[in-house]
């Protein structure tokens, strides 16, 4: 891996880590408004994002960079005050994670491309669960 591609890979990994950190925060907010099976699903997804954060942290450190730190607070995209808005927030967070991993698919390292693509699939499936619908191009802006 050359220096320029390494930088590109690290920046894509950092973007994915930032999205995972935001998702962890957001699921904490969403979970406070959910009950029953929805709460259980949110807790499971929250755990998934924590595991992904830990995995990305290890990879970034191996590449010689310092993982981007989580913020103490994240601006929510809209007010979250009930189960409906909490569910919409979960879908929004997963869309953001899907988009972040899309950047990883563009790096030259083939293993990272595959890692990013598989992470996109998980996030897209969770987004579909929360939104109740599938997308033709998860994470990608298509004209």
């Amino acid at each position, binding site marked *: 891996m050359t220096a320029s591609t390494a930088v590109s890979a690290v920046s894509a990994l950092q973007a994915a880590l930032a999205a995972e950190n935001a998702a962890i925060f957001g699921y904490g907010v969403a979970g406070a408004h959910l009950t029953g099976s929805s709460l259980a699903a949110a807790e499971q997804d929250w755990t998934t994002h924590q595991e992904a954060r830990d995995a990305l942290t290890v990879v970034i450190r191996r590449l010689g960079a310092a993982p981007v730190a989580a913020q103490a607070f994240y601006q929510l995209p809209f007010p979250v005050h009930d189960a409906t808005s909490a569910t919409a927030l979960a879908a929004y967070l997963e869309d953001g994670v899907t988009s972040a991993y899309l950047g990883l*698919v563009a*790096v030259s390292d083939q293993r990272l491309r595959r890692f990013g*693509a598989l992470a996109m699939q998980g996030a*897209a499936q969770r987004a579909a669960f929360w939104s109740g619908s599938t997308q*033709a191009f998860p994470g*990608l802006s298509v004209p």
Partner: protein
Amino acid sequence: MLPLLLATTGCRSSSLFAGPDPLAGRPPLRHDVLTLQAVIAAEENLISLYEAAINDDSGTAPQDARSRTLTPLLAQHEQHLAQLRARLIEPPGQPASPSASAAGSSASPRPVRVTTARLRAAERASAAGLVQRLATVEPALAQLFASIAASDATHVTVLAEKALG
């Protein structure tokens, strides 16, 4: 004067002038073009499967229930196909890319029932195949493949949730 100069310097015209050699014949198809053609053919096959499943009235679930579930997924596959075709720029004079209709011409004339399980398997195989191809294509195409694979993965989940026969 120019031919003399070329002769004295020992240069061939092809090494002095950039661009394809007009005497070299048809250039080989780039790897990305071949990959796109294969992915387009696979997408066309997937669309054919959905069309067969939607039109099949021998299933256990009512046909309108099948159609209600499968039609939105089919529409997304048609969007995939449109985007893939938009990226395909074939040099003039090349033979047409392989397609589902061409492949279907040698298939058995008896229609095979397309179950939800078969669609699910096809979606899973499509997602895996696209991820497999990521390594060798240019970044923008890799991102399109990854996004389509993610869409296919969500279809697998939808099909697993629906018992449509």
